[in-house]
């Protein structure tokens, strides 16, 4: 009797990868999930931070999908390795700062390493021809297989019948006839398949599962790189880009101003790494100052912070400034008006 074959499925938390894993599981293959944390994953972050989003479920969709499928999920931290993908993508960026093709090659390559280390037979992705303009086209799929090193061990069950047969199909580990031939951006075939499998709850994020496909987030990342003069980042940098209102009055410093209580609490955790400000005389948000600032810069920053507090119409408000070491002082300032904050300052 032949041994049970084992596959690892790239699980994003969306419907396609869930269905791809399910189709292969139905054929008696042992499937486990793998999910890569790049630092830019949308999963729950802003929901976790923002008080206003408390009513929304905070589940991690990849974990949830794994539980629905009854499979193990391995979450892999690739934050450091991912930097070279984002900073210098061989195939370039998409509409925003999304290096989708390089990202897919990187992840499939990591999955290939994983199956070798863990004695698994092949890799499954939920890719569909024509679904994403940058990475999921018929011409790009062989590039992913080849440049990732996965070659014919990469099976795309959702559109396999439209692609050359892979080793799992040729060897009979899976029955090609039971795989799918979905193409295009319509979600109807996937929704019908979900219904057939009795899956009635799934995540379908409009912009995908990555912050880099977001116009505003990408603009903040570009601003960060421009200000520091190099395309580099740490995890804290990319986390902070997701939080608050970012205002850059000068190239050498910007303010990150909490928009509500949850964000304020999150920014509190960075008070030992940044100069921070908040209003003493009125209710107002916490702000971090990112950059090296002069006394004049801090005075301007305090006037901006004052604009976002309850004292915005007051003649004078008290702003407490705390440096990284914990020394505090208070500035009396007149809040800037809306008109005095140029639109170009908003990042």
């Amino acid at each position: 009797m032949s041994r049970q074959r084992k596959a690892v499925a790239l699980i994003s938390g969306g419907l396609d990868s869930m269905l791809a894993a399910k189709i292969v599981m139905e054929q008696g293959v042992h499937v486990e999930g793998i999910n890569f944390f790049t630092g830019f994953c949308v999963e729950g972050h802003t929901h976790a931070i923002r008080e206003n989003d408390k009513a929304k479920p905070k589940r991690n969709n990849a974990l949830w999908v794994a539980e629905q499928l009854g499979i193990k999920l391995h979450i892999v931290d690739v934050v450091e390795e991912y930097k070279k993908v984002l900073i210098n993508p061989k195939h370039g960026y998409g509409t925003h700062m999304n290096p989708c093709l390089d990202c897919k090659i990187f992840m499939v390559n990591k999955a290939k390493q994983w199956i070798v280390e863990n004695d698994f037979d092949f890799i499954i992705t939920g890719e569909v021809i024509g679904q994403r303009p940058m990475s999921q086209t018929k011409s790009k799929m062989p590039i992913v297989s080849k440049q990732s090193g996965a070659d014919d061990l990469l099976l795309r069950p959702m559109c396999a019948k439209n692609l050359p047969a892979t080793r799992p199909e040729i060897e009979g580990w899976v029955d090609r006839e039971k795989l799918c031939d979905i193409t295009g951006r319509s979600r109807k075939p996937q929704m019908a398949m979900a219904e057939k499998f009795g899956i009635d709850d799934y995540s379908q994020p409009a912009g995908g599962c990555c912050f880099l496909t977001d116009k505003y987030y990408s603009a903040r990342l570009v601003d960060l790189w421009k200000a520091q003069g190099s395309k580099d980042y740490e995890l804290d940098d990319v986390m902070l880009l997701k939080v608050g209102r970012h205002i850059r009055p000068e190239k050498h410093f910007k303010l990150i101003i909490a928009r509500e209580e949850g964000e304020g609490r999150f920014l509190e955790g960075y008070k030992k790494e940044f100069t921070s400000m908040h209003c003493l005389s009125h209710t107002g948000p916490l702000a971090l100052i990112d950059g090296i600032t002069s006394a004049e810069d801090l005075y301007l920053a305090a006037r901006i912070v004052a604009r976002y507090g309850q004292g915005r119409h007051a003649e004078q408000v008290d702003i407490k400034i705390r440096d990284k070491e914990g020394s505090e002082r208070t500035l009396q300032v007149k809040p800037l008006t809306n008109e005095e904050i140029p639109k170009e300052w908003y990042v």
Partner: protein
Amino acid sequence: MIKETLNARRLLCPLPVIRTQDKVKQLKAGDQLEVICTDPGVMQDIPTWCRINGHKVLETKVCDHEYSITLEVGA
């Protein structure tokens, strides 16, 4: 049996899950791990991770915007 504590404060999901996963790899079946976090999402994610990986949640606590989950490592 040993009991260890993991400080996952300030980390946002899935990082607390990843740190838990990495720590559990160093422990033996029956050992206990208390994970302390500030992201409320862990109250859902760590128990889910435990269920799919065969670990048992012994206790969850919420105190002053901190979330603590104690788990027992499965076989």
